[in-house]
């Protein structure tokens, strides 16, 4: 009843091809933007920013990157954390050695560096497919982390190998408080997410999906395989690189290779699996889920335990969280293999015909 598209007809190609053709969608989207840009910074506490919102946004960006590579182009990659590390260290070095560049440009250039590394490690994808490619991307993961630790040039010859990120400034305006970090990250993520959505809708995205579905057939109809795959690697690594730079500058504040370990690659992969592979919204949903879940469990489990008078010690409670985490992943894979984004789509479909059942 509320979500009716009837009566909304388009009279130009531009109107027909717009990102949000349905009026209700447009209203919802702009309301969301207003809430997120205006209301949240005004009313939300520092803890929410530092511990929840900023990591959700940063990991959404990385998840969009991985989604482009694995969800749209079908190349399974376990090396996303390595590209994030390249982005973080490139950003540090660019800001250090070229301080006259505006920092936002440095972050984008860091993404470009990550893209170049991504192309280098994406070359095997031309010959290798499936799980073999996943293991090959692990080579990227381990090599990059080792190289960043081993060669002192990357860390500016710091004796400990951990470097504090310089402060962030936006054309002279210092970004130092959690609110400002949040708005800064939000702007970057919004712009890049819109770019990704448009790329996915365009010819580029269709080429990726053709390669994903059956690359031999794609080659037969004339899609250049190597170029498409490398393009997917490059753009995906760009996103991961920018996410890594933001992680180091706006979230943790230090740049350390060990933070970008295999665990983080798996986390990003989980996010897109549970969120929904091949959708941009899935990246956001997955990132929210995996950022909120550990904190939620660490509050909920002790609560339930004390309710039932189970006296577990602290470590046992954490182990129960791990078990629930693993079980939830399996649960979601069984119940909805297309991820939470699919739940959202089903919801929208039901809304269209509501209150009728069919």
């Amino acid at each position: 009843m509320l979500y009716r598209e009837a009566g909304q007809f388009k009279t130009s190609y531009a109107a027909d091809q717009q990102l949000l053709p349905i009026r209700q969608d447009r209203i919802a989207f702009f309301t969301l933007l207003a809430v997120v840009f205006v209301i949240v910074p005004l009313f939300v506490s520092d803890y929410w920013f530092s511990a929840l919102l900023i990591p959700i946004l940063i990991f959404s960006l990385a998840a969009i990157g991985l989604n482009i590579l694995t969800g749209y182009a079908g190349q399974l990659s376990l090396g996303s954390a390595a590209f994030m590390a390249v982005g973080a260290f490139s950003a540090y070095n660019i800001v250090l050695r070229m301080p006259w560049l505006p920092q936002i440009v440095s972050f984008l250039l860091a993404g470009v560096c990550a893209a170049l590394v991504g192309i280098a490690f994406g070359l095997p994808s031309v010959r290798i497919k499936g799980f073999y490619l996943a293991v090959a991307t692990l080579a990227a993961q381990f090599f990059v982390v080792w190289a960043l630790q081993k060669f002192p040039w990357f860390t500016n010859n710091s004796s400990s190998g951990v470097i504090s990120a310089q402060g962030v400034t936006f054309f002279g305006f210092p970004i130092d408080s959690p609110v400002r970090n949040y708005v800064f990250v939000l702007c970057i993520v919004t712009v890049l997410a819109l770019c990704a959505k448009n790329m996915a809708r365009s010819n580029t995205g269709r080429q990726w999906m053709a390669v994903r579905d059956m690359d031999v057939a794609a080659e037969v109809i004339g899609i250049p395989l190597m170029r498409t795959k490398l393009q997917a690697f490059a753009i995906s690594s760009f996103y991961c690189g920018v996410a890594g730079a933001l992680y180091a500058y706006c979230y943790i504040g230090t740049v350390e290779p060990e933070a970008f370990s295999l665990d983080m690659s798996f986390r990003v992969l989980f996010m897109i699996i549970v969120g929904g592979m091949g959708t941009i919204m899935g990246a956001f949903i997955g990132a929210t889920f995996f950022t909120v879940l550990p904190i939620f469990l660490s509050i909920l489990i002790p609560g339930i335990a004390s309710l039932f008078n189970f006296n577990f010690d602290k470590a046992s409670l954490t182990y129960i969280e791990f078990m629930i985490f693993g079980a939830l992943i399996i649960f979601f894979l069984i119940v909805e293999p297309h991820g939470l984004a699919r739940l959202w789509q089903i919801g929208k479909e039901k809304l269209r015909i509501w209150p009728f059942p069919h």
Partner: protein
Amino acid sequence: MFTSKKFTGVKAMCAAAIGVAALVTGAPSPSFAQQANEQFVSVLSFRVGPYGPAGVGIFGGFIDYMNYVNVKEGGVGGVKLSWEECETEYAAARGVECYERLKTKSPTKGTMIHPVSTPITYALLDKTLADKVPIVQTGYGRTDTVDGRYFPWAFPLITTYPMQATAIVKFLSQKEKGDLRGKKIAYLYLDSAYGKEPITYLQAEAKVNGFELTTIPITPPGTEQGAQWQQIRQSQADYVIFWGFGVMNASAMRAAQKVGFARDKIIGSWWAGSEEDTVPAGDAAKGYMSAAMNVSGKTPLIADIEKTLYGANPTGNMQDKSKIGGINYNRGVVIGLITVEAIRVAQAKYGKKVMDGEQIRWALEHLDLSDARLKALNATGLMPTMKTSCADHEGSGKIKVQQWDGTKWALVSDWIEGNRQLVRPLLEQSAIDYGKSKGITPRDCAKES
């Protein structure tokens, strides 16, 4: 087969649950009215994961000591201590989240933060500076914070890695009757910030003392060390200084046994010298030595804690009582002791009430754990004497060397101080560079009281 229709109800519940979860998680914490009269201490602990076994001991000791002070003396100056633990899993991101969450629970903002983890310390250095909360790094963390003129809120108390490394060299020199010339020392280290830090200082010591230093890295987590120990055997090293952490410690002892390298020629750092490292290695650990900034065993204080908290009505934190008196447990007690002593010193100046960050910071710069004071605290021999000041946030620089005899750690030296003349200028230079890069003007210690 498993179409959307079959699980629709389940899926709807999932969606609802997720929404509720998000709201619950970010809900504002309860007000701190009930803790108005309590000194709330944040405990950022790790009890799971590869470093979990050490963490169980350390944080058990820390919490037990605070509990002990509450029970025996009714708190500090009548103000009871309260605390809350948050699991960081030894990861920087979780550490930041725990810090932010616990910060909101009390006006003390956690009194002082003991991350017991170098990566978490680095991640929190800027945040604690901005929030005006002291961060204490007993024997780990960012070394150049010894210079309090550039780092007013960070305290690497007791001693730091370079001081420990140079103290170990001193010990070896004593063993070789003062002459290390021509000897070969291998430095086997975890390839991380922790492991790389002492290298410059050891190289400087090698020049001064005339020994040959080879550095051999181990990639984390370090369970495979066969190649490294074969190299050591091939180079015919006289001694091995071992800077490991976590599971690689036991692996090192086993790998040394595998190539036939005598364990009594290996000295580890204090993060490679606890029962959690030697017991799993079994026979391979016999003879292995390590540095220690606190001793193990049931010294009078530990015995008293055990009697008070684990007697008739056990309120102690340790599930496994056999760990009481172990190196990690005692380390936790020392951390607790420093915390309580800082509160006491602050109260002596500012009055017997709940102390805030600035007052605790002042106290941390005026700690004086002399022999007499340690005796009053029943902690003689447990930890070295320590005196901090505005310029010296370290306070001690002393370690003892202990040896594993198969069942327990036995001391084989007295307190040895590191090579301050060598180490301090390098650290000061590093602090000056940091100040330049961040645009910080150093404090003038003479002007402050």
